[in-house]
């Protein structure tokens, strides 16, 4: 293995990037790795998006026309898995890689080699997951929540590879999070106190904590599945004294913090963008920090609100209902603070700001439908209907995904040194905004009327709104090709960006040249700005 042992050249880290493709394979640079994560995430976004469009094409009309019910199940499952673990999570890790060291005045991530390892596991994991489509019996078909016994006794053989893919994603996430946490705790420039950190850094600190706490639980639950499938254990088999409901408890103990893992960094992004374009300091910085921490804490004690109809004791239903409603308090604090930041600001509406404002409004709609779902007796009607689908797509698409896009528009001048094309960016925003609402708003209606999720066919009374929804989905999906075009155009050239890029921008990343040099803050910055957003 001597070929693997690298030679050390003490002065190497002052050089620029290597030439050629191996730069990306061997890199330890946080900016390179951030770029890798972001491109990987976009590829997965398109892969998951194609599956979503297949689903919407099938649901365009009642009846079975395009895909078989078997394939439909595989598509819904893989769409969810790819979007959650392949698109949204890696995008935020990519943003953290690019931004956290620059925001806190650190020379790089704390553990640079492990940083590369965290990324390069992912292409292997997702190749293995995607290859299940070609296996005998097809891809996993039990929904992204993979409830036992559908995912154990009745699963296709490819479930084994699904389990190991999840293990690999978990290892990647845990190592990535350890890196983020250690960077934030140990590599802040002198004077960068915790309460001066930008909120994006704060929300990522909390997110990384959540990831380290719950990804091992996910690993545990898939391990239990593996043992039930191959070694005759009885975790999820009542005949042996186990319980399929146990699966749901362990899964959702991971799964609920997971949804905040996908939204907290988005809060951080929006908290950076709104002050910049409102030209005001973020309203209530301290309360934003405490609200984020409260949301993280509450995320551990509300998991069974996903399980109201499975048959848990009445006392449990009441507890989980009230605990869930508590989350509305810190979330309300956040929404209030964003609105208060815009209040009487001198606002301009560049593309990042448009995405950020759309985030505040549409995420709040998703939050309100979440409150409706939290009410136990009402949830008995909504459970497993399209209302749930509408709810979590509202918090994930115009929530997390819009925040990621806002972040790309906001920081891409810093990354590439070029301004993106503003009219095209705005076009992309309006197409996405209209597309997303046409897609998901009607799903509230069909859901309330009783249309079940994850079924390829439906009763005639749902036909009109499904047709509308499918049209919106194709509009939204194809608009993302425009996004790809804009990003490539900006990488290749464009109006040169200034150091500060935005008139109202504050923070360390705006004090360095655009594009950001390959190595930044090799010596810590002298002036540490006050927290601004």
């Amino acid at each position, binding site marked *: *293995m001597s070929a*693997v042992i*690298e030679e*050390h*050249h003490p002065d*190497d*880290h002052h050089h620029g990037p290597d030439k050629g493709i191996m730069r990306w*394979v*061997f*890199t*330890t*640079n946080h900016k390179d790795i951030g770029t890798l994560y972001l491109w990987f995430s976009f590829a997965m976004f398109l892969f998951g998006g194609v599956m979503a469009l297949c689903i919407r094409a099938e649901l365009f009309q009642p009846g079975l026309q395009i895909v078989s019910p078997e394939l439909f199940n595989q598509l819904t499952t893989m769409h969810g898995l790819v979007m959650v673990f392949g698109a949204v999570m890696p995008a935020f890790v990519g943003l953290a890689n690019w931004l956290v060291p620059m925001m806190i005045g650190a*020379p790089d991530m*704390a*553990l640079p*080699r*492990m940083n*590369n*390892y965290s990324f390069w*596991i992912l292409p*292997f994991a997702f190749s*293995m997951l995607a290859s299940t489509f070609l296996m005998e019996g097809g891809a996993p078909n039990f929904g992204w929540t993979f409830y036992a016994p559908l995912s154990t006794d009745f699963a296709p053989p490819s479930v*084994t*590879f699904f*389990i*190991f893919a999840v*293990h*690999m994603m978990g290892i990647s996430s845990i190592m990535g999070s*350890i*890196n983020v946490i*250690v960077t934030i705790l140990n*590599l802040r420039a002198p004077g960068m106190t915790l309460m001066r950190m930008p909120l994006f850094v704060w929300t990522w600190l909390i997110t990384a904590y959540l990831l*380290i*706490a719950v990804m*091992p*639980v996910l*690993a*545990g*639950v898939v391990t*239990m599945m*593996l*043992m039930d499938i191959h*070694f005759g*254990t009885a*975790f999820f*088999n*009542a*005949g*042996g*004294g*186990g*319980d399929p409901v*146990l699966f749901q*408890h*362990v899964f959702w103990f991971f799964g609920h913090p997971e949804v905040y893992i996908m939204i907290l960094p988005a809060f951080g992004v929006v908290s950076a963008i709104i002050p910049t374009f409102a030209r005001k300091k973020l309203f209530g910085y301290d309360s934003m920090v405490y609200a984020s921490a409260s949301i993280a804490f509450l995320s551990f004690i509300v998991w069974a609100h996903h399980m109201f109809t499975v*048959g848990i*004791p009445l006392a449990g239903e009441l507890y989980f209902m009230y605990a869930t409603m508590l989350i509305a308090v810190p979330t309300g604090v956040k929404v209030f603070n964003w609105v208060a930041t815009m209040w009487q600001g001198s606002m301009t509406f560049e593309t990042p700001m448009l995405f950020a404002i759309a985030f505040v409004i549409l995420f709040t709609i998703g939050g309100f439908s979440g409150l409706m779902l939290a009410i136990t007796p009402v949830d008995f009607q909504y459970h497993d209907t399209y209302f749930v689908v509408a709810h979590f797509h509202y918090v994930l698409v115009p929530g997390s995904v819009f925040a990621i896009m806002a972040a790309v528009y906001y920081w891409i001048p810093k990354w590439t040194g070029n301004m993106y094309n503003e009219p095209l960016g705005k076009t992309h925003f309006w197409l996405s905004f209209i597309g997303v609402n046409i897609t998901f708003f009607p799903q509230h209606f069909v859901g309330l009327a009783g249309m079940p999720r994850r079924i390829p066919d439906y009763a005639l009374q749902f036909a009109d709104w499904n047709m509308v929804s499918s049209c919106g989905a194709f509009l939204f999906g194809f608009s993302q090709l425009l996004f790809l075009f804009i990003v490539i155009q900006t990488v290749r050239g464009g109006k040169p960006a200034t150091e500060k890029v935005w008139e109202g921008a504050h923070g360390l990343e705006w004090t360095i040249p655009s594009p950001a040099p390959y190595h930044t803050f*090799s*010596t810590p910055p*002298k002036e540490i700005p006050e927290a601004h957003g």
Partner: protein
Amino acid sequence: MSTQDAYEEYYVPHNSKLPIFASLGIFLTVFGMGNMFNETKAGVDSVFGEIVFLLGGLTMAATLWAWFSVVIRENHQKLYSDQMNRSYVWGMSWFIFSEVMFFAAFFGALFYVRFFVVDWIGGVGDRGPSDMIWPEYVPHWPMVNPPNPELFPGPAEIINPWGLPLLNTILLVSSSFTVTLAHHGIKEGNRKKLVNWLALTVILGLTFLVVQGYEYYHAYQDLGLTLASGIFGTTFFMLTGFHGAHVTLGTIMLIVMLGRALKGHFEADDCFGFEAASWYWHFVDVVWLGLFIFVYVLGS
């Protein structure tokens, strides 16, 4: 915190070939394992899975060896500042926290089964109808009578906690003391003390593993207590088995540290590798105490 006047540069390697090999290694390992499992389940006679698994394991082992060699060499070249060492301390601490949460999932499963499921299947409380499926079933822990004995034949007996498990408790708790004495050896600059106590720790760890191996053999051969003997066997073997895997890993770490100690590594102010291994060792010790209480003593 380093001040700006006395700023020590944070070491960032220019690039590294290690992670891509590690990624390949982990992929081959699990891909091979998946094929092994699926071939066995389908009754296919093939060694494809085994070969890939072996290849992956070797790649992983070689890469980790190279990786740790690089880190040790860089440390000896004095490339690591105090700040760098603090990164390693934080990194190891958070890694151990993630391990705690992994065990928490299995302990949680045990408690949930123990306190709710055992009774509910028997129709206790407001779960009335469920006892119509298996009317013969009587709620009892340890569950020696699973609801469906045809699929899950229950064990004749379970392990007596006051025999081998008590011995193992004594072995593992003593090893936590011996590893601390070895640490004192480093701090005092007494290499003989370090090597002797560390060697004893390794022997205690290996003895623990042998005893547990014998206990498993006894459970399978004499008691009918197996992975497939219902939820008691399931939780028993999964919890103690994962713990045993961690003891194995910890013992390997300590053996490596013993080798390094014999080569003259570790100084009083520069022994993080040893400390990380010993923290890990204390962690598996604490998990064992949880197992001894909740699985062995309160389980019987």
